[in-house]
Structures are given as structure tokens and as C-alpha cells.
């Protein structure tokens, strides 16, 4: 009988290489790069299989064949696919996202213009959603099974179940047209469109920088309706998740501990339970924020909001592939960034996740 001594020391060393803080950071960056690259590749391929002629977008329907052929060559569409992709990726690595066919400008400039619009809308919507959603969720959880719970549930479900374009148009008709509480489509009254030189691109901040309170309030009155309508959706989601997290936390032992200590129910709910609810909730909020940051195409169309969603959609429908690729990379990066941010927040809120 022979006896084999098993040794796995090498494997252990390998494992150690990736186990440290540095290792996990490298892994994170690596996976980010892979994700972005994959995003790029998929988008690129989509662009090539799309049955829309990108040359047509550039030259128009009535251009003579000679012009068409020349532009096609200029756009590099006669090269093999891999070569086009290679050129595209190496350009991006040099910070060149190419030029949009539709706007005749560098894609990066376009994105710098449209992204703040989306960012502003998504941020305001998320703020409203969080400010209302969390208290509603808490309220529902505390009164589980009673009418306030049902009320919040129904309110949330209505938000979940409403076609946004219908809600948007109805909202405009009621609050803008009939009641006149808010301003109409657009980020500012049409007349003001070129009054503001974009510094940050965020209308609410730019108007304040210019110190023009009239314009600021104008911007507020324009953003409030689309943001509220978007917020309704994230609110419904946040309230619902808050409720279920809250119920979970309220059943925990430490809540009993707090009650034993004689602490008021208000403090137990808002300090003890909510403190713990915020931990998983951060991820939920981040996710809904990230989704809003992709740009809500339909809301943007209805409210003439020149945002990222509309930009990418239009570009896609007109086969403006540089713009679509650039926009997608931005959306992907934002998505990943927001997830990272939620990770950081998670660590801040949950001492157990800290090192």
C-alpha cells in the first residue's frame, strides 16, 4: 500500500494573490473593462445588423449615387467588420467617439449636452421618489394589513401599472393646460431656450449661477411634472421595497431589544429599523436611479426633453452608429458607476461591510 501525501500549497498561494484588497480592486477594474468592452461589441454588432443604411442618414434620400458611394467610403463602411471595430475601439481609447451624422458634431459634445438633461431629470425624480417613497413604505409596513397599507399598495400599483406616455400626456393636459400649475414641455419656456449658456448643463444650477431667479423658477416649473411622473414609478418601487424590508427588520430581535429599553415606537421605527432598512434600500434606490439615468425615452419625447434616451433612440433609428455607441458606453459607464456608488454607500451604512 502506498500513501500519497496531498499538497495544495500552490493553489493556496494563487488564492492569496487575489484575496487582498488590491486584488479585489484589480478584479473589479478588470471586470468593469470587460463589461464595457462587451457592451461596445454588442452595440457595434447591433449597428451592423440593423437594416437601416447609415449612409442614407448622412446624405438624405435624394442624393445622387456618386455622393452616396463617396460618403460610404468616407464612413469606412467598405472595410471588413473587424477592421471597422478595431478602428472604432482604438479611436475610443484615444478619447475620440467620432462624429455624429445627425448633428455634425463630435459625439462627446452631444453627450455632454444631452446627458445633463437626463441627469437633472433623473436626479429630481429620484429625490422625489425617495422623499415620498420611503415614508410611504414605512407607513405601510407599520400599519401592515390595515387600510394605510392597502392605500399605499394601491397607490404604488397604480404607478406600476400606468403607461407612462398616457400618464405624461394626461399630466400635461391637467396640470399644464387646465390648471396651469406647471409649465409645459421643454426645459425652459421656448422663448428662453438660448438665454442660458450651459455651464454645468443642469438647468437648475446654471440658472442659479447666472443669478436669474425668474429663469430658475421657470426651470423648476418645467422639470416638476416630468420628474414627478418619473418619480411615481421609482416611488412605487421604493415604497414597495421599503415596506418589505421594513417588515423584515421589524421582526428582528434588536427591535424587541429596543422596545425592552422603553424606547418610543417612533424612534424604533425611524432610527433603529430604518437605519437597517437603508442598507439594502441603497441598492434599490441606486438601481432605480441607474434606470432613470438611461433616459426615459417616452417621457423625454412627450416632454420635449432633449435627453440621452431620446438622443440614443433617434440615433439608433437613423443608424447614427457613432452616436449610439457613444451613448451606450456612457449609459453603461453610468450604470456601472452608480452600482459602484451604491456599493460605497452600502459600506458606509452597514458597519458589517466595512473593513
Amino acid at each position, binding site marked *: 500500500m502506498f500513501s500519497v501525501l496531498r499538497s495544495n500549497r500552490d493553489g493556496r498561494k494563487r488564492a492569496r494573490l487575489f484575496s487582498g484588497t488590491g486584488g479585489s480592486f484589480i478584479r473589479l477594474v478588470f471586470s468593469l473593462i470587460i463589461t464595457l468592452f462587451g457592451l461596445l461589441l454588442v452595440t457595434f454588432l447591433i449597428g451592423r445588423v440593423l*437594416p437601416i443604411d447609415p449612409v442614407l442618414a448622412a446624405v438624405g434620400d435624394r442624393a445622387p449615387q456618386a455622393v452616396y458611394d463617396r460618403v460610404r467610403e468616407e464612413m469606412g463602411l467598405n472595410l471588413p467588420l473587424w477592421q471597422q471595430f478595431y478602428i472604432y475601439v482604438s479611436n475610443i481609447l484615444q478619447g475620440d467617439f467620432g462624429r455624429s451624422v445627425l448633428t455634425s458634431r463630435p459625439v462627446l459634445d452631444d453627450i455632454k449636452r444631452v446627458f445633463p438633461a437626463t441627469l437633472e431629470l433623473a436626479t429630481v425624480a429620484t429625490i422625489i421618489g425617495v422623499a415620498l417613497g420611503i415614508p410611504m413604505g414605512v407607513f405601510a409596513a407599520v400599519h401592515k394589513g390595515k387600510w394605510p397599507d392597502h392605500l399605499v399598495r394601491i397607490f404604488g400599483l397604480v404607478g406600476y401599472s400606468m403607461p407612462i406616455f398616457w400618464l405624461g400626456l394626461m399630466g400635461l393636459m391637467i396640470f399644464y393646460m387646465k390648471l396651469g400649475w406647471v409649465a*409645459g414641455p*421643454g426645459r425652459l419656456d421656448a422663448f428662453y*431656450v*438660448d438665454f442660458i449658456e450651459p455651464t454645468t448643463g443642469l438647468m437648475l444650477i446654471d440658472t442659479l449661477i447666472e443669478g436669474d431667479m425668474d429663469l430658475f423658477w421657470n426651470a423648476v416649473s418645467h422639470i416638476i411634472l416630468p420628474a414627478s411622473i418619473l418619480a411615481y414609478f421609482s416611488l412605487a418601487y421604493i415604497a414597495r421595497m421599503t415596506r418589505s424590508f421594513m417588515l423584515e427588520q421589524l421582526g428582528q430581535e434588536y427591535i424587541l431589544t429596543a422596545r425592552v429599553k422603553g424606547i418610543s415606537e417612533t424612534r424604533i421605527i425611524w432610527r433603529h429599523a430604518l437605519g437597517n432598512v437603508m442598507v439594502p434600500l441603497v441598492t434599490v434606490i441606486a438601481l432605480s436611479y441607474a434606470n432613470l439615468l438611461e433616459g426615459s425615452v417616452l417621457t423625454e*419625447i412627450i416632454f*420635449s426633453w432633449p435627453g440621452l434616451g431620446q438622443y440614443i433612440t433617434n440615433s439608433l433609428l437613423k443608424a447614427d452608429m457613432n452616436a449610439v455607441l457613444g451613448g451606450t458606453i456612457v449609459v453603461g459607464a453610468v450604470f456601472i458607476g452608480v452600482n459602484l456608488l451604491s456599493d460605497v454607500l452600502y459600506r458606509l451604512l452597514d458597519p458589517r461591510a466595512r473593513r
Partner: protein
Amino acid sequence: MRKLIAGLVLGTALATMPLSANAETPKNALVMAFSIDDIITLDPAEIFEFSGAEYAGNTYDRLIGFDNKDVSKIHGVVAESWDVSEDGKTFTFKIRDGIKFASGNPLTAEDVAFSLQRVILLDQSPAFILGQFGLTPDNVMEKIRMTDDMTVVMELDQPFAPTFVLYCLTAGVGAVVDKAEVMAHEKDGDLGHEWLRTAYAGSGPFALNKWTAGESLSLTANEEYWDGVPEMKRVIIRHVAEAASQQLLLEKGDIDIARNLEADQIASLQNSDTIKFQNQPKGGLWYLGLSQKNEYLSNPKVREALKYLVDYDGISSTILAGRSTVHQAFLPDGFLGALNDNPYTLDVEKAKALLAEAGLPDGFNVSMDTRNTTAIMGMAQSIQATWALAGINLEIIPGDGGQTLTKYRARQHDIYIGRWGPDYQDPHTNASTFAWNPDNSDEASAKPLAWRNAWDAGDLTAKTDAAILERDTEKRVAMYHELQRDVMANGPFVIMFQETEIASLRNNVHNLDLGPSFDNNYYRFVTKD
């Protein structure tokens, strides 16, 4: 927590407070909602889009113009007068004195020659309009030249009908750019093209203030305009894609003019006491293109039957209410030689008989590529319904503009429902696409609509070529009449309607000047109470 409550209170306050200021646009500014996301360039040598052309029409002066009320009245704009040589091949233009560019530079013959040469040299989409006269990048420098400070000469390769030449010069390619300004921005010998795509160098009644693609376009009045300073000091055009949003803005008074309201919206606003409408027949034609590659559609009896299967009056009075008139010839009303008789009406029995003659008494299946706009979808669905009466099963394939067009140009459609807009005001513009197809092979270099529908136009091609050389206007008219009748009877086109543009205006807005083409809608005469 306290912050949260504060936020809540603020949120509620904001949500309920009437924030919107009293909606009223300033008296000396014109605010307009318009679907302008088709603008991809501001260089007049490249512009070939509807709203882009409208921009150029308001910001650049052209060599020649015509009267919006009566297209046959041609007059000089930048050209004060012109002479045509005996052999009809040389045009001499006398340039108007006293025109100034926005840069302050005076407009001279040098700018005019440069502008025309530039169109040919840049060779962008609209360049063919001048190219028809035998101008190429190689010969243009000698064929178009200035003879003195105020005179430009243009030599043609054939004795074209003068009206043809002059109408071509009323198009966007006739716009005069500021040579000094443009050349100051030249890069790599591009004649300033890259720069001018997003900038301005003209002398028109308005100057570009700012263009934000897909968002807004704003213009300021040229305070030194030679032909009368506009009353509107600013014109702001906001891109509003959704027609319902345009309507809301207009009703609310946040804009003065809405340009893209749909027929039903207009109908619902007919009784409004704050809004009025201005109609202008346009050159655009709605038509069905029937691919001759399709075995059923290549049958002349079938083509004829289909022409009896459209509810012309129904559509034009409902889906396109006020936005079209029935028109079945390929030259729109208002064009030289346009034919205005409309022989076809909805006649299911006749169509059935024709189908039976064609050996298809039970109809057939066919598909139609349809752009997904309200108007086109509406028409398509009505056509679908009437064709079904004759047993023809029409499948609608909806798609975005880019998509349907790509298919159409690649001759992969059965039927394409589309709109054709003339490029310039001469009848040749439509004749050369509906009735002209020198090479019907897939590899052809010229791809007019006849080619797209794989229709061998036969001797019509030669007849079309002959018509532009006919210098006797009356004879020329007769030639076009014949071409139109021929295409109407045999062509692969079911031409249905001529477009009418309707602008919706607030009551206090007057004198918007809408022309027959998309590049002669002028803002310069607009006044507001």
C-alpha cells in the same frame, strides 16, 4: 428625519404651487414649435432636408426668387438682372449693389461665383441640381466666373430651357455665402465646409444665433437687411416631436406657431377663438410605389385596378383633412405644366373587373413598407381596408423612416407608401424621377423613383430629356402633359394627394409667408399684435 420632512413639504409645495408664469411670448419675437430634428447641416451647399432648407431660405439670399403667390413670376434677388446668350448656353448675371453679409462684408460677384462653384466642388447631395448643366468639379472654375465686380457668367453644355435653369437657381444651391468669412475657416481645402455645417455666413433677413441639434434653432433679425428689416427681432424654433405637446404649447400660448399638428388636432381646434390656420399647397406628393419586381404588380391591369381602390376623397377629408388635396399627376399643382385632372376614384367593382381580367379574381397577398407616422399609418390602414374589398390582402410592414427608405432604395419592397417633394421649382425635378429611368438594372448609377420600383420607363426617358431642352414654354408644357398622362395610366405609381401645409398660429400672429416649397417659408414679414 427633519430634512426628510422638510423635503416632503417642499416637494408638496412645489407640486401644488402654480409655478408657470403667465404664458405670453414677447411682441417682437416669434416662437415656433417645429419638428426640426432632421437638420443635419447648416451649410447651404449641403442642406437637403425640409427644415434645414427652411432655415437656409430665411438666412441666405439666393440668386433668383419667385413669387410665392404665383410661381411663374421669377425675379432676381441677389441677381438684379440676367441675360441669356443667343445660343441659350451662356447666362450673365448682374449682381445687386448694396447687399451686406452679416460679417459686414459687401456681397460681390466674387461671392456669387464662389458660392456656385463651391456647390459643385463640395459635391454634396444637392450639387446635382447645378450639375445638370454640365458643371463638374473639373470645369466649374472656368464655366462659372466673375467678369467684373458685379457680373457673373455661367456657361451650360446644352441650350436648356431658361425657365429650367432659373428655377434651379431659386433652390438652396443658389444661396450666396460670404467668401471671405467662409475661407477664413477653411481647413484642409474643404472650402470652409466643416465650419459652415454648424455656422453661418449669409446675408439674409435673419442671421443664425444658435443651433442645438434636435433641440432648438434661434435666429436674430438682420437689422441692415436690404429688402426691409423684419419686425421679429428673434425667431426661436423649438423641436417638439410630439404633436400633442405642440398643441398644448400653442393653446397655452407658450408658442406662437405650431407647425406639425395632425389633421384631427386641427379639426378639433377649428372653433378655437385663439388659434387660426394658414394653408399652403406644397409640392409634396403622397404616392404608392409599386415594385415591378412583384409578379402581381407588374401586371398593368393590376396596377390600374389598384388606382381604383383608394378612397381618395375619404382619406383626404378625414385622415389628411385639410392637409392634402386629391392629385393624381406627378407634377404638383402650381408647377409649370401641372395636370390637374384626377380620373381615378374609389370604384371597387371596376377594380374587381380589372383584377379578373388580370386573372386574379380572388385578389392576392402583398406587403407595404410603411413609415410609422400617424398620417402614413392612417392612409395605409384605410388602403388596407379598401383593398380587402377587392380581395387583396395587404400586409403593412411598419418601420422607422430610415428603415423603410433603406429597403425602398434597395428595391426590396413590394409597395412603398411615401411622399415625394420636388427639389426645385421646375417640372423636370419630378419628371426626372417619375418618368425617367435610363438603366433599369440593379447596378444602375442613376436611381430615380422609376428605378426604385424597377419600372422600365421606355421612351419616356428620352421624352423627359427632350423636355428640358425645349425653349418654347408652351411646347414644353405639352410635353409634360403627355408625360404625366402616360405615367398616370401605365406607371407603377398610385399618386394620390398633393400635400397642403397647415401652420397653426395664435390669432395675434400675421403675415407668415408660406411658399409652395419647403425652402420658401419666410418669417421676415411676420407681425404680432
